């Protein structure tokens, strides 16, 4: 009895965690399951039979296809622009000393701490006053804006863990700054960049609130779902959402795997610093960062 109690007490945290994970995953599983539902009425809310026909007809609704394509195009463009601008900011913040760092940091953090409805409403206010017509272009301006901060955070954390001795080694071996950037910095930074880009893409393709304010008559995937919710969401939406989930998860796993590989290639990281220095101090071998990276 006391042993069972002790076991339960030790594992209470793990059991709680397992339940929490279930709570997080159940709605996702439900979406996947309901993409195989054969609803009787217009509403895909109750289970009424298995079918694969909606997977076969995934792209049978022209309005939905248009909305999804608009979202993909918008997310792709917003991702490219936000990743470039955000990475440049991150490099400046980590690699350079300058006045106004606090102000820059504040400007980057504050959009993330502002409710989306306020961001959307304020953008609409400006577009209204300037008479800027709402549509794909205004959506793009907004999506890049809210993605930049997240890109900066991801790339910055990657740059902080970056071993600059690898670059110094390249420079010592006669590489020009440009060659160093191209052959050392960029490859090591790539997993971080791809991670940031994926995040920006996910944020953009998923955004409803800010898009609702800045879209005009342009319809994105989330806006289509919102509009369809009143009259019953077609099963195809569940199918496309499941596809999107599978594709982004696959991309995410691939990036994590690449990141691990990059980290292995550049084993000289902050954690290993101690051993490197102690080896150097004991005079056993004159190791250079470049040597141990090879």
């Amino acid at each position, binding site marked *: 009895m006391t042993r069972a109690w002790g076991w339960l007490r030790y594992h209470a*945290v*793990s059991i*709680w*965690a397992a339940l*929490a*994970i279930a*709570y*997080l*995953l*159940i*709605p*996702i599983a*439900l*979406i996947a399951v309901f993409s195989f539902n054969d609803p009787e009425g217009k509403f895909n*809310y109750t289970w009424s039979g298995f079918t694969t026909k909606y997977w076969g007809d995934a792209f049978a609704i022209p309005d939905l296809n248009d909305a999804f394509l608009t979202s993909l195009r918008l997310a792709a463009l917003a991702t490219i622009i936000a990743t470039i*601008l955000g990475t*440049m*900011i991150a490099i*400046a*913040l980590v690699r350079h*000393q*300058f006045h106004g*760092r606090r102000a*820059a940091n504040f*400007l980057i953090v504050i*959009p993330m701490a*502002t*409710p*989306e*409805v*306020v*961001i959307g*409403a*304020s*953008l*609409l*206010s*400006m577009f*209204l*006053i300037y008479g800027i017509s709402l549509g794909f272009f205004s959506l793009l301006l*907004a999506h*890049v*804006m809210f993605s*930049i901060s997240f890109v900066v955070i991801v790339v*910055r954390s990657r740059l*902080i863990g970056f071993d600059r001795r690898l670059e110094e080694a390249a420079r010592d071996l006669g590489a020009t700054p440009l060659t160093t950037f191209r052959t050392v910095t960029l490859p090591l930074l790539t997993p971080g960049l791809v991670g940031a880009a994926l995040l920006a893409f*996910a944020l953009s393709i*998923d955004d*409803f*609130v800010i898009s609702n*304010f800045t879209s005009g008559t342009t319809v994105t995937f*989330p806006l289509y*779902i*919102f509009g369809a919710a009143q009259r019953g969401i077609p099963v195809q939406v569940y199918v496309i*959402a499941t596809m*999107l*989930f599978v594709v982004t*998860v696959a991309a*995410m796993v691939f990036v*994590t795997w690449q990141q691990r590989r990059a980290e292995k290639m550049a084993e000289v990281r902050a954690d290993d610093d101690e051993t490197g220095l102690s080896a150097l101090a004991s005079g056993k071998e004159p190791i250079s960062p470049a040597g141990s990276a090879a």
Partner: protein
Amino acid sequence: MNDESKPLSRRLVPYWLMGPGLIWLVLFFVIPLYFMLRLSLESGTLETGFEFTWDWANYSDGWDRYSEQFFRSFLYAGTATVIALIIAYPLAYAIAFRGGRWKNALLFAVVAPFFTTYLIRTIAWTTILSDDGVVVDVLKTFGILGENGKVLATPSAVIAGITYNFLPFMVLPIYASLERLDPRLIEAAKDLYSSSRAAFVKVTLPLSAPGIVAGTLLTFIPAAGDYINATFLGSTNTSMVGNAIQSLYLSLRDYPTAAAMSFILMAVILIIVLIYIRFAGSEALMGDEEEAT
């Protein structure tokens, strides 16, 4: 400051790097806020046109007409934040200290909801909580819910949805702070004859406080402005301030009141956050800035 010795062109490099991105943020975040501020002080209707008149009445009108929604927003967001913390802390703890080789898979499960569309995720909850769904059945069996009881279209459903949708924002910062924690500190406490509980209360909990502060803010702020959960899982009796702002802007086109209410929302959030930071310490927010310098 050793950068004074560098040539001017070198010193300008960071500004060139940051320039385009920060200008984008100024143009499409800061300046829009200015225009919203101006709009919030204008008077008139859509038909007659709006005119800038320092019309502060928009603020008092907005507050009077929608004080219920304001109150509800902060109540729901606060409740959801507390529940999320209760769910998230043990989860983050288990991943950080008991995760083993499953650590990455578990972290992945935490962010998995982000890879499905927010709206569909929320709509999936309408199926789970529907009147003939499993949750309602179970609650009725245990007598928690009456024979005609329902979960959907009640405040509980809205709070459950908000908790679900923002839970990852709570888990990740707490996990990050626990992960950074040196396990030798806990061992040291135990070596000094501290009980597991005392070691947790005196070592683990205080050291993970920055994560808790960051997590609560990241959950509370978007939750207070959210209106998706109230739209899909609630009823007209559970509408939040986001619903009001959205309909004032996009349906009723009463721009000045809507703008004023956005500012009230922002101001109240700011006040709550400042009080909270004063109370909980500012390390959590300033922490990662210091890393960069």
